[in-house]
């Protein structure tokens, strides 16, 4: 939003699922290799060894798959090479390639299943977050699901690309080792070739020093290689998130919230138009009756008690109805209701409203709740003397901004006020952004989509 320091962005799924995340939680132990690599104690932790175990255990599996792929890959390369030199491939070769490729494709989903099982298990070496195992879906379903073909893609990646990367890495390691040993091996008769021949021990020593210094780099590079492989594996092998189902859940939540809101409104209306005036009428009648009953009559006391109770009930019902749906919102609309809120606040509040057109009821109520809660927080925690509320439209969104001149440093991790707000905002598919650097100012910004 405003690019202020100390910003907590409650964007996207974090806010929508209401797990408010505060960045900078580096004190925790890393749960996966990628995170561990960024730490200073990487080299002395267990992670390099875990990465090494992961890399080494990759070799047999990737090797096996590479051989399988070469059955098709080698003739294909040969044919391509021949074509380049103007020799058309023979019919037998083409037939072999066609049949071979089809067989490979047909077999791949079957092969990829056990491979995926092994790979998910092996991923545990470099990633503590468990990956749920996928169920065998049945033969036909296996060929139809998108997850299967992602696993197949992973199969080809593991058999095709990974071995090449490993070879390159291995060659670099061998080159480094060669440089380290070169002072002992190099002589004029048998020069060690790095990128130019080294013919004497003296010539070799600088290379050896550089190579020794490079060793830690290889540890990091091995870590990177394993981490990259793990990221791809995780991406390909994670049970797919059913986005259609998620969308449906989000939609049904919005529907539920809408229905809930309509119901609240109906209850408020029924109470306001039905129960409240009748209760007022009852209190009035009791008040009238009291006028006619002499003070010393035995009926006077119970009548007075009934009158008092009816009045107490009126006050109670009024508060109850207000809690269901603020009356001011029904009567004055959002801008007016927010001004009433500002009026009732214990600190000075300026309201700027720039709203045109009607807002969906649920958006109005949510915005009202946001302002009410935010002003409540300001009064309770911020030590502020003045706050500013801005209501406006931005595209299809209603934007609510509450700014105060308090001490800042609001932390969603402490206290439930902000979490409750984020929940309420997420329920209508909106988002909440908070900027509260120490020393202030604190800005709470809420964006609520207004599509009906």
């Amino acid at each position, binding site marked *: 939003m405003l690019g202020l320091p100390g910003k907590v962005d409650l964007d996207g799924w974090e806010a929508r699922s209401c797990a408010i995340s505060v960045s900078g939680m580096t004190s925790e132990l890393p749960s996966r290799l990628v995170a561990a690599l960024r730490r200073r104690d990487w080299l002395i932790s267990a992670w390099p060894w875990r990465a090494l175990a992961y890399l080494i255990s990759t070799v047999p599996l990737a090797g096996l798959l590479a051989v399988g792929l070469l059955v098709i890959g080698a003739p294909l390369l040969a044919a391509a090479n021949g074509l380049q030199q103007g020799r058309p491939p023979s019919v037998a070769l083409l037939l072999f390639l066609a049949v071979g490729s089809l067989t490979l494709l047909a077999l791949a989903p079957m092969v990829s299943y056990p491979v995926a099982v092994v790979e998910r298990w092996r991923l545990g070496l470099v990633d503590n977050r468990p990956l749920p195992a996928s169920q065998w879906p049945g033969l036909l379903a296996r060929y139809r699901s998108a997850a299967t073909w992602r696993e197949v893609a992973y199969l080809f990646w593991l058999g095709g690309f990974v071995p090449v990367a490993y070879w390159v890495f291995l060659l670099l390691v061998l080159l480094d080792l060669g440089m380290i040993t070169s002072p002992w091996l190099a002589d004029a008769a048998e020069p060690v070739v790095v990128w130019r021949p080294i013919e004497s021990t003296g010539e070799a020593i600088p290379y050896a020093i550089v190579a020794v210094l490079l060793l830690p780099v290889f540890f990091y590079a091995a870590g990177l290689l394993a981490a990259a492989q793990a990221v791809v594996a995780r991406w390909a092998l994670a049970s797919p998130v059913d986005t259609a189902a998620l969308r449906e859940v989000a939609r049904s939540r919005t529907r539920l919230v809408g229905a809930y809101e309509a119901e609240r409104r109906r209850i408020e209306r029924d109470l306001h138009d039905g129960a409240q005036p009748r209760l007022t009428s009852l209190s009035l009648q009791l008040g*009238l009756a009291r006028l006619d009953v002499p003070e010393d009559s035995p009926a006077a006391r119970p009548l007075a008690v009934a009158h008092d109770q009816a009045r107490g009930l009126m006050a109670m019902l009024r508060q109850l109805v207000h809690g269901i749906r603020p009356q001011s919102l029904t009567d004055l609309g959002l801008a007016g209701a927010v001004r009433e809120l500002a009026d009732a606040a214990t600190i000075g509040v300026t309201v700027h409203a720039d709203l045109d057109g009607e807002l969906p009821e649920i958006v109005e109520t949510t915005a009202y709740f946001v302002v009410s809660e935010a002003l409540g927080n300001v009064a309770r925690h911020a030590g502020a003397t003045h706050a500013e509320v801005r209501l406006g439209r931005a595209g299809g969104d209603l934007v609510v901004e509450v700014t105060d001149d308090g001490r800042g440093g609001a932390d969603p991790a402490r206290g439930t006020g902000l979490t409750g707000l984020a929940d309420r905002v997420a329920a209508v598919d909106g988002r909440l952004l908070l900027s509260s650097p120490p020393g202030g100012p604190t800005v709470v910004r809420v964006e609520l989509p207004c599509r009906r």
Partner: protein
Amino acid sequence: MTRVVLAEDEVLLREGLVALLTRFEFTVCAAVGSAPELLDAARAHEPDLVLTDIRMPPGRHDDGLRAAVALRAGRQHLPVVVLSQYVQTGYAAALLDSGDGQRVGYLLKDRVAEVTEFVDTLRRVAAGGTAIDPDVVRQLLHRPRDPLGALSAREREVLALLAEGRSNVSIAGRLHVSEAAVGKHVGNILLKLDLPPSDDTNRRVLAVLTYLRRNPAG
């Protein structure tokens, strides 16, 4: 006899109010259940006082209030008392801005249960006074930024009672102080609120009116 036009959409409450008014020797010229009917009845009967609910048909929003404001636009001095289910300072301000800014009452509906006080309030407004519900006044006085911040606690108390349209005698009785002391407090309030002395008997209520106009909440 004070002639009243009454508007309230809930039948039972309307009948109760009619009984109350009749008992205290008001004449109810018309008792209606919607804002347009109120406009018609008030124009037909030219009453001494209009008593109306705020939320009424047809819109079920602030129709009653708008009708009252419209009536006072036509008859500047028409005394009007509106009943509101909730404290809304914006409504009070709109009402006080209508007509000549006097002879208006803004009360919570609950007040009708305090039968005699309610009738007193109606009489005060019909006689040219102004009455603001104590809850509205309390809400306004709670704001620290307001110009009333300069007032002492006692002066606030006095102002709150003033705003209800009470006389010095009544305030003195209420606060258990001498009438002269109340007079001194009132003088201080007017001084601190920068209200110039004049012959206007409602100058004291103007203390609250000025404040409301300066901070229209609607």
